[in-house]
């Protein structure tokens, strides 16, 4: 239980956190997963959702909009497209994200439509999960 893994969360614009944690809950594209120290090397893509890191210093919760996560034994790097600490988030941010995804979905080609619609649905679920 005392084992920790190095958790890095980076977005294209900045590094959001880099701390030792005991477990991280990731919204994977194929379902949620929890990564603990010594996890088998895995790469998964993310769907919009809540990412929760539990460490000695407490919980860190982020809303991520997509990206991917790379777990390799002693470390986990999450490369998020956009990540917002839930404490800093507010309803407007989520509304904008949903609106943007919706306009992209409307403009999408028929074959991409399903993917885009899923993203909108995921974002709405994310907004609900974040409590807005």
């Amino acid at each position: 239980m005392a084992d920790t893994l190095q958790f890095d969360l980076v977005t294209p614009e900045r590094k959001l956190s880099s701390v030792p944690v005991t477990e991280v809950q990731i919204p994977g594209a194929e379902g949620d997963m929890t990564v603990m120290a010594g996890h088998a090397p895995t790469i998964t893509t993310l769907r919009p959702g809540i990412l929760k890191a539990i460490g000695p210093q407490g919980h860190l919760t982020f809303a991520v909009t997509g990206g991917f996560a790379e777990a390799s034994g002693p470390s986990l790097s999450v490369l998020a497209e956009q990540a917002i600490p839930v404490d800093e988030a507010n309803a407007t941010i989520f509304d904008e994200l949903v609106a943007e995804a919706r306009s992209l979905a409307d403009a999408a080609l028929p074959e991409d439509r399903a993917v885009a619609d899923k993203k909108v649905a995921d974002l709405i679920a994310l907004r609900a999960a974040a409590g807005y």
Partner: protein
Amino acid sequence: MPSLKDLKNRIGSVKNTRKITKAMQMVAAAKLRRAQESAEAARPYAERMNAVMAGLAGSVQGTDGAPRLLAGTGRNAVHLLVVMTAERGLCGGFNSSIVRKARQHLTTLLAQGRTVKILTVGKKGREQLRRDFGHLFIGHVDLSDAKKLGYTHAQSIAREVLSRFEAEEFDVATLFYARFVSVISQVPTAQQVIPAVFEAAGEERTDYDYEPSEGEILTDLLPRGVATQIFTALLENAASEQGARMSAMDNATRNAGDMISDLTIEYNRTRQAAITKELIEIISGAEAL
């Protein structure tokens, strides 16, 4: 020979110019620091992204199912040049050196009989290329109202490029921007983004479990990789622009200083000559009596 009054006015105006260039230099220095910080902040993401994609690309490359962003269209006929320059001038050779690099590439391509399309980012490059290659323009991205460069800007450029790729408008895309080395050195760089090129991964890679499959992840990541590369280029370019402006304005300030001291010497000489002349006139007048 300019009169004393003319000289005085010149000195005054050069002094004003020096004040302006000095202020611009200081503003550029402050902006440079900020630009460097954001370039630094973006580095971990880009490095991770490249490492993961290089690993994935290595395993998928050569197979039939390789995504087109990686494998290319199999042709090499139509090239898209994304020329990234600044929105403003007064930054030394910054814009011209990027344009020169793009122009060289363009001429070689045209000589080989390829079709070339140009997408410009930043209006300075557009102005410089318009006269010779205006008919090749297919679009322009205006960033002049962007206060701070964000990933969203890169995403919108990437979306534009990718939708054109999907519509089979070109086969190869190359970015032109200036890589920031130091305040006095910015290297104009050409970087091919589509099809994606990766440096061969040196060290032995760990075997990852992929969820979903490797191919699907790669299809998801490649467009993101393009956006990341564009974002990196935008940030490097912004830092280079400020660096180039800073050294250009430093030179201008120094030149203005030199000019002021030259003009002051000339002013003093002229004044001395006028005094001497008046004295001679008085003395010779007195002697004539």
